[in-house]
């Protein structure tokens, strides 16, 4: 039985520095992450808040910030009482130069057994990272309605 985690790899025609900027700037994230702002100073130990249309959806703390190679933070979904009861999970971005491309590996791990969040993030990350790839390569993010993700209880 493998441990509960979600891993997603994508290759993007960009530079590690531009990808790092896109992963840490609200100006970019609002365009590819369903309107989400990323609020943090990105220093190890600093807090992070994900804010969607004025509502904080997730909070965390920066664990690693090795620009432009590795970024990780804890991730606590806070939109419902049930989600708040789960302990924070962990998000790791690994950026590797790959010829003229960058290989981006996202690992979302440290879920408690039976996590309700795991299904939702497994459906959300492919949309967010696909849109990020489009934005960096073509200048236009994708228009994906949240309802198209097929997350239970989200319409």
């Amino acid at each position: 039985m493998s441990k509960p985690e979600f891993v997603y790899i994508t290759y993007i025609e960009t530079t590690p520095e531009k990808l790092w900027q896109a992963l840490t700037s609200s100006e970019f994230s609002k365009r590819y992450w369903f309107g989400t702002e990323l609020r943090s100073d990105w220093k190890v130990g600093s807090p992070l808040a994900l804010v969607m249309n004025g509502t904080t959806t997730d909070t965390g703390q920066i664990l690693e910030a090795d620009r432009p190679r590795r970024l990780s933070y804890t991730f606590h979904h806070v939109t419902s009482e049930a989600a708040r009861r789960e302990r924070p999970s962990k998000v790791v971005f690994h950026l590797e130069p790959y010829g003229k491309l960058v290989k981006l590996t996202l690992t979302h791990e440290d879920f408690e057994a039976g996590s309700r969040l795991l299904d939702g993030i497994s459906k959300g990350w492919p949309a967010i990272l696909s849109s990020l790839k489009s934005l960096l390569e073509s200048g236009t993010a994708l228009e994906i309605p949240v309802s198209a993700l097929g997350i239970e209880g989200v319409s």
Partner: protein
Amino acid sequence: MNIANFKPAIVYTIYIASTPEKVWQALTSAEFSRQYFFGNAVEVDLRVGGAFIVRTPDGALHISGEVIECDPPKKLTVTFNVNWPQLIEKLGPTLVTYEIEQAGEAVKLTLLQSHDRPLSDDILSGGRQGWPAILSSLKSVLETGQAMTIKMAPPQRMLDALKEMGIATPE
């Protein structure tokens, strides 16, 4: 072969600024696939029972199978068997399914690689390494017209595991 006995071992979803018809065409045409599938050509006779073939850039037969489900432009399921001696005997057939759905103004493409028995992480590492590269490049071709050149070393971990099982892999 009863496809109900197959369970997805690898699932990869990617969203593409395109139409379901164009994604379908990219998945089923040799001309497109050469651009995003490490130079390999997909040749498929699009009817249930039709042949599904992947040829390497030098024209050699690399993967052969047949069409199991064909519902253009929504769903294509094929058997996807690499032509290495003993592979199908030891691992059973591999099933690959592409599901294509409209998602707002984008297209959601889901790839499932399924097997009729549990396989080790070592065996599955080949697909886990390959599919993200193939489908990232497919997305770029459709969105920007430019394929990505993803040079990838052979999936050594998988090859070692296959060799250990007595499956003849290319030297």
